[in-house]
Every structure is written in structure tokens, then in C-alpha cells.
């Protein structure tokens, strides 16, 4: 049996068929200031009652934190008071991005189910759990009942073989998959299976970008996962890491993927952003600092760095990366989603080009529809910051 059906069977007592819709019990409920603001309003205006199991809930103020306006601050207040009233204990304000914090907390076990009021909830698939991204109404329902309605999608196995060449990152593989596999991944759950044991960050990034692949979710099979007889996958993709080369997603679609070598120098770059749930971990900041150090050159663009969590930030400080980046002229933002969603800091100017380690390059994503965003790995981002062009 495949890992997805194993997860569902543990909750339902049976294996559901493809296309079947049912109510699914959940183990963790994740939300942030953005989704929680809508949830709070639903509870207040519709007098929904109490959260059934507050201990299952984790909320991070990460999308806009600290508040950028009185309006945001007042919405934060409503959410803060609501969580207190409802006895939700696990609340983070400004300690980083919800997905990163949930992962760091080690509170999610393989085969558990996490629902989250954020599309990148599948990130937790990195530990072999099933993360399902939802809207605010679904989260309100989950808070009330500890269940969500769910339709069992088809499954696509992504078989990874080989070892990644020096200079490539999980981001390159995620972008490579985005560039080639729309049909195989759309509206399916992806199951990643690797011959070699991949680092935890790799698993996180691949599951994190499942929504960009239009997948419902993604689960990375844990090391030592014992496959049972029939897997029953509906589709299969095979990738050889040995052949991986750096990739970029050009504006304004995540599937607008090119090999970086084919577009090198094609665009002048104004600002480089290293951060987010996709590319704001210690390994990303370390790669950025190492590439800059090795070059001995100064920055040719603005550089904005936003650690994915306080823990990442502290480790980057201890390793000397932050001090070095500050000397180089980088702007370091507090742990949060930062400029990725164009709601508070790091808004782009008209006609500007940003190379970003984030997961979305939609028109207007970073707060200005007249700007352009190119997605890349932290290494490619670092090179762009040095060269001033793609």
C-alpha cells in the first residue's frame, strides 16, 4: 500500500477510493495572521462557539509582523484575543514562518495529518506527514470539529535517483519538475521516493512547492519506509539528480521555467531576495554568504535577506553569516514571510526585476504589477547579486 492510503486508512479504518469524498479527522491545525483574521471574524459574526481541541492548534503571526498599519495591528489584536479566549497555547508572534516553525517543533510525526490555512501546508510532507492547504472556512470547520471534508485525489509517484551535482539545490529540482510535468502533478498528491537519502531541507522544498505544481499535497516517504505489496499509483515521474542543472522560473508564471544557462545575462536585476518558506533556511543563507565570500566582490544589486525563523536567524548569526552580509550591505529583515507576498516590506518599483528564492512569481506578487519576479535557488540568487544580471 502507498503511504497516502496508509495515512488515510489509519484515520478512516478503511482505504477510500479515488474521487470519494469523506470527513477526515486531523492531528494538527495550522493558521497564520492572514487566515486567522478571517477565521476570527467567522467565529465572531456567526457565533460559532468553541474550538474543539485547542491543543491541536498552532498559529504563527508571520505574514505581516510586526504590523505595518493600525488596521493590521487591530486585526492582530482581534486574533490575539480570540486565541487567548479559546485557550490556544501554541502561538508564535514574529518567530518565523508557520511551516518552518511547525517543522522545527518536531511535533508532527510521520503519517499524521496537518491541515493549514495556507497553501504551502504540504511542506510538512518532508517528515512523511500529509499536509493539506485550505481556506479560512475549512480551518474554522476544522477548529470546530477536528475534521475536514476531503476528496481522495489520484496519486503520482516521483522517483528520484542519483546524487545532486555540486552547485544544485532542491529548488532546481522543484523548478525542473514545474517545467515539465503539469499533467502528471495537477490535482494529485505527489509521493516523493528517493534512492539516496536526501537532506531534510531538500524534502521540505520539494513538498513546499507541490502547490506550484498544482498538486493537492505531497508526502516524502521516510527513510526505511516499508512498501507493502501494491502501491497503486496513478502516474509516475522519474528524475535523475545526476543530470540536474540550475533552473529559473521567468515572470509571471511558476511554470515558465528555463535552464539558468540558457537565460544567463538576459535580464538586469535590481534586487535579490533570499528568504521565505522555500528559500530562507540556514542552508540558503550559508550558500548566499559563501558565494559572496568566495567571489571577493561587492554587491551589484540590493540584497534583502529574511530568515525563515528565529532559530535560522540565530544559527546564521552564530555561523558569522549575518555579520558578513551586513558588512556587504545586505538588509536583514525579521523572521517572517517578508517581501514574498507584497503586503508590508520590500515592495518592488515599476519595471524592477527581483531574483527571489520564494515559490511564486505571479504578476503583482511583491506588491507591484509593473515589476517582475524571477525564481531561483539561493546559489543563483547570490550570483545574480554579484553580477547584477540573471
Amino acid at each position, binding site marked *: 500500500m502507498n503511504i497516502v492510503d496508509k495515512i488515510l486508512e489509519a484515520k478512516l479504518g478503511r482505504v477510500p477510493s479515488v*474521487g470519494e*469524498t469523506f470527513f477526515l479527522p486531523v492531528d494538527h491545525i495550522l493558521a497564520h495572521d*492572514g*487566515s486567522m*483574521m*478571517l477565521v476570527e471574524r*467567522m467565529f465572531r459574526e*456567526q*457565533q*460559532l*462557539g*468553541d474550538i474543539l481541541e485547542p491543543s491541536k492548534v498552532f498559529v504563527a503571526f508571520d505574514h*505581516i509582523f510586526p504590523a505595518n*498599519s493600525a*488596521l*493590521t495591528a487591530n*486585526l492582530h489584536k482581534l486574533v490575539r484575543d480570540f486565541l487567548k*479566549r479559546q485557550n490556544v497555547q501554541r502561538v508564535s508572534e514574529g518567530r518565523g514562518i508557520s511551516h518552518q516553525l511547525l517543522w522545527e517543533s518536531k511535533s508532527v510525526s510521520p503519517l499524521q495529518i496537518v491541515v493549514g*490555512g*495556507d*497553501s504551502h501546508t504540504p511542506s510538512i510532507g518532508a517528515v512523511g506527514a500529509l499536509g493539506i*492547504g*485550505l*481556506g*479560512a*472556512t*475549512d480551518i*474554522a*470547520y476544522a477548529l*470546530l*470539529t477536528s475534521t475536514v*471534508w476531503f*476528496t481522495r*485525489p489520484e496519486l503520482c509517484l516521483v522517483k528520484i535517483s542519483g546524487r545532486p551535482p555540486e552547485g544544485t539545490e532542491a529548488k532546481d529540482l522543484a523548478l525542473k519538475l514545474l517545467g515539465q510535468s503539469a499533467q502528471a502533478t*495537477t*490535482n494529485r498528491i505527489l509521493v516523493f521516493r528517493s534512492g539516496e537519502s536526501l537532506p531534510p531541507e531538500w524534502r521540505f522544498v520539494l513538498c513546499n512547492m507541490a*502547490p506550484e505544481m*498544482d498538486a*493537492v499535497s505531497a508526502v516524502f516517504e521516510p527513510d526505511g519506509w516499508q512498501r507493502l505489496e501494491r502501491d497503486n499509483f496513478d502516474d509516475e515521474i522519474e528524475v535523475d539528480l545526476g543530470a540536474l542543472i540550475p533552473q529559473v522560473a521567468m515572470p509571471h*508564471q511558476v511554470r515558465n521555467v528555463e535552464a539558468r544557462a540558457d537565460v544567463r545575462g538576459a535580464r538586469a536585476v535590481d534586487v535579490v531576495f533570499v528568504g521565505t518558506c522555500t528559500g530562507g533556511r540556514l542552508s540558503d543563507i550559508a550558500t548566499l554568504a559563501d558565494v559572496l565570500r568566495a567571489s571577493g566582490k561587492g554587491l551589484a544589486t540590493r540584497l534583502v535577506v529574511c530568515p525563515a525563523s528565529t532559530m535560522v536567524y540565530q544559527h546564521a548569526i552564530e555561523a558569522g553569516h549575518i555579520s558578513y552580509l551586513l558588512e556587504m550591505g545586505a538588509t536583514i529583515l525579521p523572521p517572517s514571510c517578508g517581501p514574498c*507576498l*507584497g*503586503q508590508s516590506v520590500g515592495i518592488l518599483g515599476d519595471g524592477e526585476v527581483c531574483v527571489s528564492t520564494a515559490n*511564486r512569481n*505571479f*504578476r*503583482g*506578487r511583491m*506588491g507591484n*504589477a509593473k515589476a517582475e519576479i524571477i525564481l531561483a535557488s539561493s546559489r543563483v540568487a547570490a550570483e545574480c547579486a554579484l553580477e547584477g544580471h540573471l
Partner: protein
Amino acid sequence: MRIMNVVRIGDNVNTDDIISGRYLRAASTDTWRDHLFEDYDPSLLARLGRDALLVAGSNFGCGSSREQAVLGLKAAGIGVVLAASYGSIFQRNCVNNGVLAATYTALKVALPADGAAAILDLHACQVRFKGSAPPLVWEAPALHREICLAGGLLAYFMATSNQPRTS
């Protein structure tokens, strides 16, 4: 039966296109209605209303889970959308707010032009575009219909829950 005007939009229209991130923090639903599709096509808003039938291409509502996209459409009077396919979270957000998000198969029905008239029959789950036969018929899982008919997921919860409401 309702007579509707078709408003066509393209493929891969994401929820950032429907409502930009800069409007998500708002005190009222009106904000999301008033800025619908602002970056995608600012001329669209004037054409949205109770008699507008949004007909999108594939992967409609992909990307961010922001429910403000559906709340804005609903506030504009949109109760039905049609698309070749949907971003999965957006489609659930539609169902959860009692907005019918039906899927068409382009092979079976010639797609209507922008501005074309359409006759919607919610009871029969079908829409007929003027000058085109046969009608487009949609199906939805029983639970989608149940939730939609209840007026959304929270109304469905109210109707089905026996739990005491304490606060």
C-alpha cells in the same frame, strides 16, 4: 432559470490575480469586491454582478489559499463560476461559501464568446449558451451539493451539529 452574461477569463488566473495581496487586510468585504481583478484586468470589475457568469479556462484560482478571492466574488454577486479546471483550494473555498464552481469539458461544448448570453438552470445543473447546443451539464459530488445548498460549510455545520454553542 436565469439569464446571464458570459464574462470570459483565461487560463491559470491565480488568486493573486483575483485579489491582490495589498488588499487582503481589510475591515470589510467591500474592499475585496472593489478591487477584484485589479492587476489582471481592471475593466472586468464593472462587468461583474448578479447576472455575470464567469467562464474561466484551466486551473482557475490556482496559487494562494486566500479566501478573500471567493469572498470578493460573492460580494460582487457571483454565485456560479465555470472553468475547465480549478486550483483545488479555490474550488473548495467556492463550495464552502455556497458558490457553485462547475467544471466544463471543452470537448463537449463550444465555449461561449465574451459577452454572450447564457441561460442557467441551477435545478437541472446545466447552462445553455445562446446559439450553442447541447447544454453544458455539470456534476458535483453529493457532499459539494449538500454544502452548497446549505449556503456554505459553516451553515452546513450549524444545520448538522448538535454541539452546544457556548460563546
